């Protein structure tokens, strides 16, 4: 089973949903699926126990990216480009706030972070 599908299954009980069809890869965890901050600790723990990789809340709340290159609290052109490349998308635009990005962070993007971590762990 690929990371994305397994992740969708893991999210079911955390988000109180019953069918995997209710969680689509392009759904935003916060805006579409209603995840709250307390849910994220369960999500992180479920990832750690099932995939064997530790993801910090900073990594998915975009704080790490935010700390790198944010002007007046919004994304710069360069950072948006980097995010688009990292997550293979075009949705990141200059001018978005870190909060907006966190709220629209999708299941697929979370799966990307998990896959990347797993690869990093394998190669080290």
């Amino acid at each position: 089973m690929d990371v994305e599908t397994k992740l969708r299954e893991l999210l079911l009980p955390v988000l109180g949903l019953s069918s995997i069809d209710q969680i689509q890869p392009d759904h935003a965890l916060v805006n579409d699926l209603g995840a709250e901050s307390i849910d994220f600790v369960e999500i992180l723990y479920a990832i750690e126990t099932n995939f064997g990789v530790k993801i910090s809340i900073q990594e998915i709340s975009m704080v790490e990216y935010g700390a790198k290159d944010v002007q007046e609290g919004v994304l710069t052109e360069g950072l948006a480009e980097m995010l688009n490349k990292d997550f293979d998308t075009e949705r990141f635009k200059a001018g978005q706030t870190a909060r907006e990005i966190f709220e629209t962070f999708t299941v697929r993007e979370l799966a990307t972070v998990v896959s990347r971590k797993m690869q990093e762990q394998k190669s080290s």
Partner: protein
Amino acid sequence: MIDRINEICPEQYIEAVKCVSMSEDVFNEHFPGFPVFPGSLILEGMAQMGGLFIEFCLRRRGLKEKRAALTMVNRMKYREMVRPGDRLDYRGTVKVFYPDDGYAVLMVEAKCGEKLCAEGELMFGFLDVMDEKMKHANDALMELAFTNVKIVE
């Protein structure tokens, strides 16, 4: 739901005691003529112990405003019945403790003598205390709970 905390080793384990007495109100209903201490109250006791323990550990790290909230009960298994007169020894052992990510997981067990009565895994998320009154009440509770407790470093 716990009578005393016996021993604590910060960020590693905690041990507490609950003495089950026939005079507890719960036995009027649970069950008439056949008193059994409810599993939900064993869980509550272990969750209270775990919450106090986690907050104690957070305070030692300078995070005095944080409160531990029970967010998940995992694989809780009740193995033996607990009857009036039994002394329950609760133990919580840290599985993970991540102050920066805002959560911790404890493996908990309740024993009566050598007999394992319940075991499981409790997860706590950390929340900021906003209310001043709650902060004061929490300070008083922490002081009371950890007076005369053996602290193993």
